[in-house]
């Protein structure tokens, strides 16, 4: 009796009321909630160490022919990645966390009573983000689980979907985003599109990239590249996809919010830490000097202890001399003006050698020679104001306008099977930095593709595109061998995609 009375009196002891956190049921009621949910979805882009904040960037670098990343990326360099690799789990997890957040918004926001134009934009941005996550997943892992609605408690994992289905979701999402996202800084109904949000032009640019990947991978698959065999499942002709790539590149360029800069100095300046969101950048992961809003980009790519990045162990991602010598034109002003030409750390000085493929090192105090460093650092991510590893203002450029020009150039040449079609776009990029025009007259398509890869390499090196370019063009094996040798550079068809991490397969009974 007494015990019973005791229980009744103390009933509230058993109720849970987490004061520091909102329950999901209380959320998604108002316009503010819709925007806050969307902010949460953006924040996932760089919240963990696995995605655009750190690991994913080094993975993409190390998997390409550009050079080495940290010792932890040995398997990426050697093409021997297995499902237990420590660099797979976090990127995988964080991409799907981003998808989870986008799915929640796409499912919950339509019922909210709010400004309809703004609502459309919120949904468009969420779809842009989901499209981007799935595009990254399908490019890195191939067939992946395709979840497009919020997960229910107790629900198991999904099996993998064919890449055609994954690409269909990406295309549908980006199409919606290209219609519903707003222009750069555009104002509608009293709401302003914050700079840094996905824009309609960015969605078009990404769509162009999606179509170009399908087109070129299918083309190389047809010519026998086994690593791209899955792209044979796409039913339309390659010309269809090249045309789509061109159309969306046109849409992105013609939209008018973005423009190529005029000269070399301005081009160098687009990589300045304080010049994030310049007119060449279609979509950037936002770095800032605000508390906890910095990125590790500067630290990953700039030499350590030289005042060019935050403190600590930096400079893990560097260019291999063989990439510089063989896979790009190292005399191109874009390369010459975007690398670190000289730096000093605590006791030594480093000066770029005459071949632009390494540094001559000396003891600062005495000037005595101290051997050579066979690697080159990029200056694209230098940030002298960064104080620590994660406090760089440097943005990560997901897609920029020069890429769209090069994509259009490629699509037009492939459509007509005539390299000359690409001349205008390629040379537009060259002219703005004072480089001589490229002569494409009389060139075979094979030579054109090689030349195009060199152009893409010199313009976009270390911006996260190289691994994807090498795979879709079917030259992954060849280029990696040039840099890493026949042993470590060798790539098989299986290396075109990374294995799904063991943490997923072991917890998902629908994937082996």
């Amino acid at each position, binding site marked *: 009796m007494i015990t019973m009375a005791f229980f009744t009196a103390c009933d509230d002891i058993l109720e849970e009321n987490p004061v520091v956190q909102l329950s999901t049921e209380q959320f998604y009621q108002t316009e503010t909630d819709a925007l806050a949910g969307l902010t949460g979805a953006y924040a996932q882009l760089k919240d963990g160490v696995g995605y655009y904040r750190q690991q994913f960037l080094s993975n993409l670098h190390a998997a390409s022919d550009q050079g080495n990343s940290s010792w932890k990326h040995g398997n990426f360099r050697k093409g021997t990645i297995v499902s237990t690799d420590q660099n797979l789990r976090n990127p995988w997890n964080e991409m*799907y966390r981003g998808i989870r957040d986008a799915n929640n918004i796409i499912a919950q926001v339509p019922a909210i009573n709010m400004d309809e134009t703004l609502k459309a934009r919120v949904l468009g941005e969420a779809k842009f983000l989901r499209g981007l996550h799935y595009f990254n997943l399908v490019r890195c892992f191939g067939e992946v689980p395709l979840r497009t609605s919020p*997960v229910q408690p107790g629900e198991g994992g999904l099996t993998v979907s064919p890449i055609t289905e994954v690409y269909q979701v990406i295309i549908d999402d980006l199409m919606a985003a290209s219609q519903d996202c707003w222009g750069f800084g555009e104002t509608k109904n009293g709401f302003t599109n914050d700079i840094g949000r996905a824009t309609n032009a960015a969605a078009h640019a990404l769509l162009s990239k999606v179509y170009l990947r399908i087109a070129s991978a299918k083309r190389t698959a047809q010519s026998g590249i086994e690593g791209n065999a899955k792209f044979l499942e796409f039913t339309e002709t390659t010309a269809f996809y090249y045309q789509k790539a061109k159309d969306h590149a046109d849409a992105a360029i013609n939209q008018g919010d973005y423009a190529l800069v005029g000269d070399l100095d301005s081009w160098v300046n687009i990589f300045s830490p304080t010049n994030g969101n310049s007119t060449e950048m279609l979509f950037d992961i*936002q770095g800032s000097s605000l508390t906890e809003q910095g990125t590790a980009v500067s630290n990953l790519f700039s030499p350590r202890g030289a005042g060019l990045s935050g403190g600590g*162990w930096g400079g893990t991602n560097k260019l291999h001399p063989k990439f510089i010598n063989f896979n790009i034109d190292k005399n191109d002003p874009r390369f010459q003006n975007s690398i670190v030409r000289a730096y000093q750390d605590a006791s030594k000085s480093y000066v770029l050698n005459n071949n632009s493929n390494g540094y001559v090192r000396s003891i600062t105090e005495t000037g005595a020679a101290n051997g050579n460093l066979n690697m080159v650092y990029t200056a694209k991510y230098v940030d002298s104001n960064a104080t620590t590893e994660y406090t760089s203002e440097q943005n990560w450029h997901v897609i920029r306008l020069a890429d769209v020009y090069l994509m259009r150039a490629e699509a037009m040449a492939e459509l007509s099977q005539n390299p000359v079609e690409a001349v205008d776009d390629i040379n537009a990029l060259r002219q703005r930095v004072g480089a001589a025009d490229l002569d494409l007259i009389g060139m075979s398509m094979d030579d054109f593709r090689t030349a195009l890869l060199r152009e893409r390499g010199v313009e976009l090196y270390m911006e996260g595109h190289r691994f994807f370019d090498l795979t879709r063009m079917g030259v992954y094996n060849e280029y990696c061998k040039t840099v890493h040798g026949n042993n470590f550079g060798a790539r098989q068809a299986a290396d075109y995609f990374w294995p799904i991490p063991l943490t997923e397969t*072991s917890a998902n009974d629908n994937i082996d």
Partner: protein
Amino acid sequence: MKYIFLFLLLPITLIAQNMTVSGTVFDQETKQPLPGVAVYVDGSNVGAVTDFDGNFSITAEKGKTLVFTFIGMETVKQTVESASMDVYMQADMTQLDEVTVSVGYFDVSKKDLSGSIAQVTSKELEKNRSNSVEQLLQGQVAGVVITDSSEPGGGTGISIRGTNSILGGTQPLYVVDGIPIDPLSDAEGNAGGGQSQNSISNINPNDIDKIEVLKDAAATAVYGARGANGVVIITTKSASDQGGKDSFTVNAETKITEVANFIDVLDGPTFETYMNQRAINKLFIDISDPSLYGANAFDGSQALDPTVYSELSSFSVPYPTSTGVDNNWQKLTYQNAISSDVNISYRGGNAQNSVFTSLGIQNQEGVILNTDNKRITSNTNFRKKAFNNKVDIFMRTLLAYNDGNASSVANGQIFQQRGVVSQALQFQPIFSLLEPGQDDDIYAELNEGNVISNPYTLAKYVQDHKKSVNLNQSIGVFIKLTPKVTWTLKGAYNYQKSNRDTYYPTNTTRGRRNNGEATQAYLENKKIYGETSFRYKNNFGKHRIDAIVVGTVEKNNIRALYNKAFGYGSDVTSYYTFESASDVLVPIAQFRDFGLLSGLARVGYNYKRKYYVDINARIDASSKFATNNKSAIFPSVALAWAASEEDFLRDSDIISNLRLRASYGKTGSNPIAPYQSLALMTPIRYNFDDNLVTGYYESNLANDDLTWETTEQFNAGLDLSVLDGKINMTVDAYHKKTYDLLQNVNLPASNGYYSIVDNFGEIENKGIEFSLNAAVLNTADFGWNTSANIAFNRNELVQLNSNLDFQLGPSVGFSQAYPAVFMAGKPLGIFWGAQTDGIYADWAEANASGIDEAVPGEIKYVNNHVDVDANGNPLPNQQINFDDYVQIGDPNPDFTAAITNNFSYKNWNMSILLTGQKGGDLFWVDSWQMNGLQKATNVKTAAFEDSWIAPLSMDANGVLAYNPSVGSTTGVSHPAPTTDPGSRAIVSDRQIFDGSFIKLKNINISYTLNLKNSSSLKLFAAANNLFVWTKYPGYDPEVQSYNKDPRRRGIDFGSYPGTRRFSLGLRFNY
């Protein structure tokens, strides 16, 4: 004749003198009548029992003696003088002290015990000199495994009857003086949630009177919800038995602790040889590679021509001349630690009023430089009998203060390779200590890309201060409503506050990375506990009943704050200010409330003290579970048969006690954080073009089914005493089944969540325990007593609550590998990895394997799973991946055992404790480096000496020559030191070692000097861990890297080195 007369007279006398005596028996203390008291005429079989009002009536002869006996009371003998008499009985203090055992909420006579409960008294505890309460239990109780910790103030692992909970850890429930106490939380972690540090580090071992360990379900079910891991009941000293006498004790002790063994790593010159060998091996492997040089591949017959072999043109070794530096970092980082302990206590009073108070001060140094812990404890209790002795009031205050520096030992850190111990092993002997103004960046070149710090710098300069204050205030009121009914009210308040402040200065790697890194963490835990109970005790002739109903309520309130800052201009302000930091991160605040409501009813019945039945039912309701799953019922039943009380054994000369026991019961566990069943949104920030905005994301998936973890246990036991109790033996066999195991279940990350707290599966533990105690010799001067115990436990993960075959344990090590898996049908937490089969001798052997990374000098992994292409044909390049893995080890020991021998001669006493374990594999994470020879860091001497060496020699001028006599490519145990090694950091059987050991755990010698006024002075000397017999190559097979975490059992990752301790002390008693 005379005798005949007497003989004749006797019956007449009897008849003549017989009369009816009647009267009442009272309790001396309460003056209440006592029912159920047995009365008999001495030397006859005439007897009676007092009725409900304490009255009796018996026929007796005048002048004869009446004997009154009642359990727990002193026997009263009274001569018959008149027809009426009143008798007062007193509680039998001595008898109580000897035979009662706390079973939780109340005591019973040891004779009436039906469950499996082991008792350790202060007499035995004192022989085991140690720093913590858990260590006191070492080797004392069968089935209780203690994992020693050498870290000052560090936690001690304890497990009772194997592991049956994963999230709950193996920690039992601790009940101190009747109040369940919570683990002391360590303020740390980026969630600011705190981590249990040392459950009862706030209790001074010197204050303990006795400890009971409740093992079977009949015993632990009393604590229902939290009894699944066993219950440890601690009774602190009090003073009610002093009889008005004052007693004063001083205990002082000094200890010296040293690292028990150093691991043999390369010295400076040999390390340089190793570094040069890496280059030479790499060169040979490359130039002998047929895929690079085809027919020209170097086999010793060709000239070493740089125009043929391009590698030769740029070849050099890193140390053509020696640096001349040779530092042994273990010696520089470890120290002989001196600790001291002073305890003062007073006790006095009588049965009516008593007081006990004690003060303990402990100053403990760790064997790692700059680590220490100071502890101050005080324990005061009062007992007062009031209102005619009907009310017993008890009050206790426990205060504990801890203050220590953990240095960068990095317990609880993800990146333990940055911890001092791992670094002391791996750091290069050719580096010197830092000069003032230098930071460990000067080590960078050799360690390109490796996370490494100078261990001396880490130990000396990293600050990791942990402070805690713990107040435990409890009050109890025991009211004798009638002689048969006692009403108890108890209340307790526990206040814990802990701080953890860290600073990584800029001369350390981590400090450099963030330009000085500071954290301040703070955690406050308040708990209110209330308990009320009614106990009814009665005898009806040969029937005895002892019943109790209890209700308890607990409410916890935790708040925590975690702050972190980067970017200090200078190290001088350490963690004290955040103002001088350039980046102060967003603080993380936590507020958590949780409660537990419980009701308990228990009936103990016995007939003639021969046949026992105990029935117990408890209901617990916890706030932590889903709305409809908050409460659960935990019943138990126990039967016992005192066979030695039966006629056929009662007169046995050999068997003095034989008791058979059987019990079955359910217990539960709710060791999870609150709010796990709810879907929650968590704030997160992002910026749009430098404008900060706050958003929310869903961080927790709802779990409407989250419910109690339940353990069912069956126990059968036997207690046997022979030869007048000189030899005592106990055997218990048990079978435990735990289902709805609570666990961080891995989810498919593609669902957006990669882990959730859920009910996970079913575990089975079964085992058998023996303990034996024998008084071998007992003469006036000499005594020899020996006790031994051995326990066998087998566990199996019977099934998972999903369709999955297995779950991965947490990742460990610098390569974030997953050595532990949880697989249905296998023991818990087995090690899973690649099998190995020696080292590839040459390219021919390597290429024949078909494995992608096979290279001479690399580890031969067994390709158990042939990778095939889409058509089912084997791929030309086989890879060693998870599909090839098999079970490579099992961390569960076959058995654990302990033997104590105690010798006494006059005033001398010596006790020797040996503990041991058979089986129990260990996964030594540091062996990846120490035996893997894969980096430019230091390695084990034995590994380098038995490694793959290329048949190339180099003379003083740096000229290379083919020289088969220096080469060693076949029959070697370790891979080639080389500058670009293959996959050596995957989980394989090369990291698995047998954890069997025997330890001379404790030797204690004491001499007692009896002074006048019944005071005494005892001098003692003790040694701990004097010898260890083991094949384990790491520091100590009693690994405690993750001693609180059953998901990572047997994983040794930079664990504190094993230590040896000598102590000298005195104890003065007045």
